[in-house]
């Protein structure tokens, strides 16, 4: 098929905006100095860096001293987790059962350090069980980590209610602070985000999820944290290394555009989501994401009996790019990452994550559904049709 490629994997990464890519080059040339140098070129670079930090802070409604530039969302999350893991006394960490692997990857280390991990379950759409969260909080709870938007189902977690519960609990134990961290990598540009008003303590972001450059992101946090590595003292000593002024500047532009456009985009994506759901249900697909809640651009479905990878490969051959949602082990017919949702092995074997963004057009959705229909008749064994 020689049609233009149809990219429906925006939750994995997003295409960089041309003006953002252009800005990287322009800034890199215009600011050749190292922001830590004391000469004029260095000072100019430093001023530019701080200007961008301040623009970003204004966008998010926070103080610019609370923003640390990082290599991306993973590093931003890691800084917070490593900070708590290094606590000498045993603590309890509460996190959801659907955290991104960067968060769940700390489980073993936490246990090695003698900390206790408590898991808050989610419902079949991926939304946290608030009652269970309340039950899990204890006098030893030091960190609550919640994914802002689930990267698989697109579910938006009720951060305000979570904050209310956690802060309420703090009061009951004499006001001793619990740190609330949010992995906001999938949330940025998809939900209205006034960080300062949320009542949380830290949040992680990655630019490539909102059409910015790869390899750059930021951590918003209050208070001090232990650095991941040592070096030249940049970014308050927490994230040493010469700052990439060009990528940071480009990220801030991408952030401005994403925030400016997000309402219009969402209303368009809700329409596409409706078409997708109707079209996929006509193909006997099961819709796992909530049909009318969550972020509109991420839809998680299951199209049995064809395995996820077979769908992904076949669609890819037709120039349509989506994600399986999580890795498949066909021999066991089980998937990592979907079991917390309580979906059956049969459904889990055939899941697909379709994710859309600013460049998605209605013709992409029509073509996707048409191709799914065509493929279904070739890929499905007769007795399963």
């Amino acid at each position, binding site marked *: 098929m020689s049609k233009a490629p149809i990219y429906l994997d925006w939750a994995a990464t997003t295409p960089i905006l041309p003006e953002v890519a252009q800005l990287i080059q322009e800034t890199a040339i215009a600011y050749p100095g190292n922001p830590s140098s004391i000469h004029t070129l260095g000072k100019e670079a430093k001023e530019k860096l701080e200007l961008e930090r301040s623009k970003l802070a204004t966008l998010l409604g926070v103080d610019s001293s609370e923003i640390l530039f990082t290599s991306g969302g993973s590093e931003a999350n890691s800084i917070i987790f490593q900070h708590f893991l290094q606590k000498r006394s045993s603590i309890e960490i509460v996190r959801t059962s659907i955290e991104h692997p960067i968060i769940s990857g700390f489980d073993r280390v936490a246990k090695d350090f003698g900390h206790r991990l408590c898991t808050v379950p989610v419902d079949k759409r991926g939304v946290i069980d608030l009652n269970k969260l309340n039950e899990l909080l204890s006098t030893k709870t030091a960190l609550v980590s919640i994914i802002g938007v689930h990267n698989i189902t697109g579910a938006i977690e009720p951060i305000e209610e979570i904050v209310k519960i956690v802060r309420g609990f703090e009061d009951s134990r004499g006001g001793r602070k619990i740190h609330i961290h949010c992995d906001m990598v999938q949330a940025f540009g998809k939900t209205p985000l006034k960080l300062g008003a949320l009542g949380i303590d830290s949040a992680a972001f990655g630019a490539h999820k909102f059409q910015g450059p790869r390899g750059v992101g930021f951590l918003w946090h209050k208070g001090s944290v232990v650095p991941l590595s040592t070096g030249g003292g940049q970014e308050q000593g927490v994230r040493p290394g010469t700052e990439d002024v060009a990528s940071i500047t480009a990220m801030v532009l991408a952030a401005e555009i994403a925030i400016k456009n997000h309402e219009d985009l969402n209303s368009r994506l809700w329409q596409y989501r409706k078409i997708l759901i109707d079209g996929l249900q006509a193909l006997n697909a099961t819709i796992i994401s909530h049909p009318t809640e969550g972020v509109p651009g991420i839809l998680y479905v299951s199209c049995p009996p064809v395995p996820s*990878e077979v769908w992904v490969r076949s669609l890819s051959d037709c120039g349509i790019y989506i994600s399986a949602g999580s890795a498949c082990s066909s021999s066991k017919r089980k998937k990592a990452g979907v079991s917390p949702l309580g979906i059956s092995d049969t459904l889990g074997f055939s899941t697909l994550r379709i994710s859309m963004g600013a460049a998605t057009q209605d013709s992409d959705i029509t073509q996707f559904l048409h191709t799914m229909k065509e493929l279904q008749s070739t890929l499905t064994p007769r007795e399963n049709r």
Partner: protein
Amino acid sequence: MDITYLLKVGELNLKGSNLKFFEKKLRANIKKSLKGIPSELRQSQKRLILRINESHRDQVEKILSQTFGLVSFTPMVMVKKDPQSIETAVCDLVSKLSSQELEGTFKVAARRVDKSYPQTSYEIACDLGGVILDTFPKTTVNVRKPDWVLSIEIRNEVYIYIQETKAPGGLPVGTAGRGLLLLSGGIDSPVAGYLMGKRGLKLESIYFHTYPYTSDEAKEKVVTLGKRLSPWLGGMKLHIIPFTDIQHKLAASEHPRFSTILMRMAMMKIAEKLGEQRDLSALITGEALSQVASQTVESINCTNRSVDIPVLRPLIGMDKIEIITIARAIDTYDVSILPYDDCCSLFAPKHPVIHPKYDELAEAYEDLNLGDLLDKALEARETLDL
């Protein structure tokens, strides 16, 4: 600097009048494997003498350790048949051992093939043992369990060596005819290929690719397995058969419970056809009795009877642990367990027939009328030289 190796052949020595055929093949195989490496290979009585430059040592030793027909190889010194030259060479060789070895125990193993040499094997061993004890006083003799053995062979020339490295034994590849290995990407089939290569069979291999149900990564995995196996076999062709159309037809069968065995029958048929085209006289599979439903004796009866060509199953009586041990030894295990599972379980019946009856299977197979599709798949094959 050059190194001279003494190469020992094993089972070949049991061969009678056709010994020369086996020896010639072994020499040809070694020369082919050493292609591009300057070397000199000659036969001296029942030994092979190989000379190479030391810079190629690691590469050559890897090749020799994968050459069927050889039981061992060792760097050696070659000297004239006079006692003084022998003593000098022995002391020189022993002096290169580590200080730890020189404080350990040794024995001398002497072999006098040239009966005109004035000393017996026993006398040679005693004399050289004495020389070693005098020159390296920290070492002691232990003839039962020595730390190292100095070997000396008196032939047309005198060969002296210390450490022998084991080679795989067996028969030179190509002395037992040509066969076709059904290579799947799992643990068993590479081991089956290795074992048949060891019995002297020259192999080509066949893999059935069911894209998009199996990924290109799964195909690459089979290619990697073939590449790991190839040095043992003196090179190997891999024929990749596009199997998707046949799989679709099989999926439409009226007998879903038979689908796995019907699929295997179709694969055997294609392999048989390829065997005819490529002058390959046997099929080799990695089947082990009752490992899975399609490997019960009744299932094997069905797949076996679907072809007229002999099917060799070298793993038939082995258990999985034994197979894995060999797979690790030949360096295929870590590739076989890579997680590129195929998704053909989509077509696997929920309740596969475990004890099928051949007549029923044959009828179901005939109903599928696969003839043209098999030929088309064979024609569309991709062949790689590994």
